[in-house]
């Protein structure tokens, strides 16, 4: 045992006055400006902030993984040993053994040409050369895969990364991270790229990893919901500095900085029964090249006073709980906040959004805008290159039916691969169908001639998921907005009049019309996408995960905008999402899809309050609630395994392979699940497809 291996009492990691800057064309960008924190063994520290707040850069600095051009000053002590100034070779001995990292994108974190088992073994061999034999390493790799919950680990260790699903890859990455029993694990947005159900699984695995290794964990995220039940302490970062730190419960229940308040208010909550407006934090983080004096949050802060603009407030004590646990915030008005303890919506001045006029009309009397009946879409699976032959088919959508009425929002939810997007594309295609019927505004799509199809396109618009990809990078915004109108033969004068009006409508400035998409932030680009969809005054807008690529604080603004537009223009939405809390916020009705079938459909409040299908229950329980107290006592239903291949769906009820109700039942009662496919049935506007439907409260 070397000196460094001696057990050390005290914090595993201490960061003090850390400053990181990068050279850029416009001068030095100071990404981290005097950051300090400590992590004790076995403690979980959550670092939260928007993109660009310096949270990732600070942890890369700890790992010594910043590019050479970065200038790092301050102090980073790992178990009392200063890391800054250590050479790469010395750091390499620590990295992967004592400190390990879990990255955001599990696909690029694994090498595609080696098996997963080999990559885990490599982590062991790299640090234990001579002491660990290849055979031992391979065996240990299997144990580790088993530990992170990969079924059939011995076989799966021989698989390549592409044969793993996203969630399994992230587990493998965690297995590599804990292979050498580290003292510190840094997880940089470990669940952002994953589905909600998988996110819950991965957080669970991280928890197990922490229990097994006893390591301190730093978890970086932009979503306050994710860390609520997982972190012990929280640090909120803004513009390269910590603006609020404290124990998780303290910060969530008594935020003392308007930014934290806004972040908390921006999360759509699963446990909020009545509709509350979300709190968007308008604007963008400041440029870090030359910050003006004063609080960097001041330009976006609703509570700003003159004193905020003169000097940056230090991180000062706002309350102490228990032994040595301090709650600090960097805001000169934190005393005011403490005194009034206002709600986020109040501070940020968000008004409640009204209901559309048509909502007063009973649903049955409203016009049916879209109806889908027994929609089927399958893709052939072929084999061979020279002689292609059909070996089977993937039934991506297998007989689904729903309808949307005027002024209504239907949320379509499910994991990736369940057929949501295929359904959308079938509706938008307005083409001949493989099976079933789609009617838009009462017109069946399979008998349309060219002119009618074009006319329907006018009333049916789409907003895509990825704001980067949905706008042509070579088109100025005014052309982007004009395009649909040109297609539908608007006069030039009318287009010129309507483009600025559209920009106003979605909260952009008129002169933005002459700019290119690359000059806008993600949230603004999504607004442009919405403006384009509104250009033709459609009746129905299809939204394909419109907010899942955005930061939470930006997401809130876009959701509010959609809400307002609906109330004002009487639109109907088909809203596809995998995030149920967003759906609860925006939708009137919800349909849950699993492997090409709708398993539960109904009015949003009824489905969320008393979900009947086990899959809906599992989905709902996987959504984190931004409330540490609630989150800790919540019983989480963790689904085992991944979505089965749609090319070979399970017989009977498609969910039975992952169903916890099925698993808990005695053998003789199970047979009905395996043999017969359950039909959708229920009362009123709530039905589910389960033989053993039983409502259960999970929120």
């Amino acid at each position, binding site marked *: 045992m070397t000196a460094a291996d001696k057990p050390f009492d005290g914090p595993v990691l201490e960061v003090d006055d850390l400053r990181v800057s990068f050279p850029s064309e416009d001068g030095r960008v100071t990404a981290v400006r005097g950051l300090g924190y400590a992590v004790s063994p076995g403690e979980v520290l959550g670092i939260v902030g928007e993109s660009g707040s310096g949270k990732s850069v600070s942890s890369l600095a700890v790992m010594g993984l910043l590019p050479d051009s970065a200038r790092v000053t301050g102090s980073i002590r790992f178990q009392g040993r200063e890391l800054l100034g250590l050479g790469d070779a010395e750091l390499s001995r620590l990295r992967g053994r004592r400190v390990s990292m879990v990255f955001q994108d599990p696909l690029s974190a694994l090498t595609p040409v080696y098996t997963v088992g080999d990559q885990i073994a490599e982590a062991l061999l790299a640090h234990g050369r001579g002491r660990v034999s290849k055979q031992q390493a391979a065996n240990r790799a299997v144990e580790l895969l088993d530990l992170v919950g990969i079924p059939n680990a011995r076989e799966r260790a021989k698989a390549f990364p592409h044969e793993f699903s996203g969630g399994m890859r992230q587990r493998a990455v965690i297995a590599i991270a804990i292979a050498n029993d580290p003292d510190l694990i840094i997880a940089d947005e470990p669940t952002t790229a994953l589905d909600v159900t998988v996110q819950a699984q991965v957080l669970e695995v991280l928890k197990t990893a922490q229990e097994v290794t006893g390591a301190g964990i730093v978890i970086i995220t932009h979503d306050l919901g994710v860390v609520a039940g997982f972190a012990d302490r929280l640090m909120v970062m803004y513009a390269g500095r910590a603006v609020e730190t404290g124990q998780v419960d303290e910060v969530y229940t008594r935020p003392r900085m308007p930014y934290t308040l806004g972040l908390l208010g921006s999360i759509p909550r699963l446990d909020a029964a009545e509709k509350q407006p979300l709190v968007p934090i308008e604007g963008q983080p400041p440029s870090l090249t030359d910050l003006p004096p004063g609080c960097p949050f001041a330009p976006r802060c609703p509570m700003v006073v003159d004193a905020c603009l003169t000097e940056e407030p230090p991180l000062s004590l706002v309350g102490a709980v228990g032994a040595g646990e301090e709650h600090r915030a960097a805001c000169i008005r934190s005393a005011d906040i403490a005194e009034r303890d206002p709600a986020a919506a109040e501070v940020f001045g968000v008004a409640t959004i009204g209901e559309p006029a048509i909502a007063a009309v009973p649903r049955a009397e409203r016009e049916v805008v879209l109806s889908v009946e027994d929609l089927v879409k399958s893709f052939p699976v072929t084999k061979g290159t020279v002689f292609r032959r059909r070996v089977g088919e993937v039934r991506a959508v297998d007989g689904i039916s729903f309808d949307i009425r005027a002024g209504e929002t239907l949320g379509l939810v499910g994991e990736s691969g369940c057929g949501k997007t295929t359904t959308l594309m079938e509706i938008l295609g307005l083409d001949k169908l493989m099976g079933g019927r789609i009617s838009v505004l009462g017109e069946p799509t399979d008998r349309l001639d060219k002119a009618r199809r074009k006319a329907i*396109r006018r009333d049916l618009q789409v907003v895509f998921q990825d704001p980067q990809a949905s706008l042509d990078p070579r088109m100025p915004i005014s*052309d982007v907005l004009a395009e649909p109108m040109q297609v539908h033969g608007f006069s030039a004068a009318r287009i010129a009049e309507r483009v600025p009006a559209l920009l106003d409508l*979605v909260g952009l400035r008129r002169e933005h019309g*002459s700019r290119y998409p690359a000059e806008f932030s993600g949230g603004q680009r999504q607004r442009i996408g919405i403006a384009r969809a509104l250009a033709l005054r459609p009746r129905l807008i299809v939204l394909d995960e419109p907010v899942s690529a955005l930061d939470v604080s930006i997401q809130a603004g876009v959701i509010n905008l959609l809400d307002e537009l609906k109330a004002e223009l009487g639109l109907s939405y088909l809203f596809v999402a995998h995030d149920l809390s967003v759906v609860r916020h925006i939708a009137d009705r919800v349909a849950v899809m699993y492997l090409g079938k709708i398993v539960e459909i109904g009015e949003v409040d009824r489905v969320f309050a008393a979900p009947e299908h086990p899959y809906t229950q599992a989905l709902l329980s996987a959504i984190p609630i931004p409330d540490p107290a609630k989150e800790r006592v919540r019983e989480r239903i963790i689904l085992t395994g991944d979505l089965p291949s749609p090319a070979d769906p399970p017989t009977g009820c498609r969910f039975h392979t992952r169903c916890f109700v099925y698993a808990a039942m005695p053998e003789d009662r199970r047979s009905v699940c395996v043999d017969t496919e359950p039909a959708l049935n229920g009362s009123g506007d709530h039905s589910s497809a389960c033989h053993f439907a039983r409502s259960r409260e999970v929120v």
Partner: protein
Amino acid sequence: MTVTDDGAATASPVDPTPVTERTPSRGKLVLRRFLRRKSALFGLVVVVLLYAVAFSYPLFSPWDYAVPDYLAFLTPPDGSHWFGTTKIGEDVFAQVMRGLQKSLTIGLLVGLLSTSLAAVVGAVAGYFGGWVDRVLMWLVDLLLVLPSFLIIAVASPAFKGESWLIFVVLLAGFSWMITARIVRGMTLTLREREYVKAARFMGQSPLRVIAKHIVPNMASLLIIDATITVGAAVLAETGLSFFGFGVQPPDVSLGTLIASGTESAITYPWLFYFPAGFLVVFVLAVNLFGDGLRDALDPSAAGSRKREKKIDKGERA
């Protein structure tokens, strides 16, 4: 309405452009960005000047390209023969200018034609897929496999005595295939982009989608390809002249001048360096122009943007 414009207002606190009366369309914006590039304008001016000089030379040069001066064989450049003379006494300046007349047009037209053909065929094949794709790619592969000079040699009797402009068609006809394949590949990826889907779902016709979304997004590749083809076409044309049609002695082109001057590049350098120099100037000017056009079309090119502070720098960190 409670939609605020805060989000927009704070987006660019450093660039308070005054509100323009009407937002300019893409065409106007590209033109404005192009005009901002001094080097691109310079390239354009050089090409125009070359044309002007090439066609107006008889006005100020005493010599004709085809009439030899029997008193001066292989004289180096002097006051009377500015670029010297050839071994039978033809004035090199007059010949270079005469050659330039054709080569400028051949180069530019071939560059334009072959790249347009490549863009259209590649984009159509990639966008429509299916049998359209198969037929077009079969044609491309066929043309790539067949040696083009062989076909020209076989076909050349048919073209004998035709205008030299037939060159342009032949040269363009044999230089677009590889680019078309690249374009097809890029189209296959562009086709799946959401903005292309969005255009399709708003009812835009396929050919318009190609013209408005697919081709502009490959502009960088196409422009670079066209500028390279311009230079290559001028030189390739000598190879075609070998088959005996088009530019025939005593008529000259820049290509034939360079080809015949190569052997005496060291002994009688003026025979080689003057035509070669003009080719270099021409190709350079076209390149500058192409660069400017590319940057004007590409919104991410920093040079064409008005000087403004970048605000997204911090975000990257």
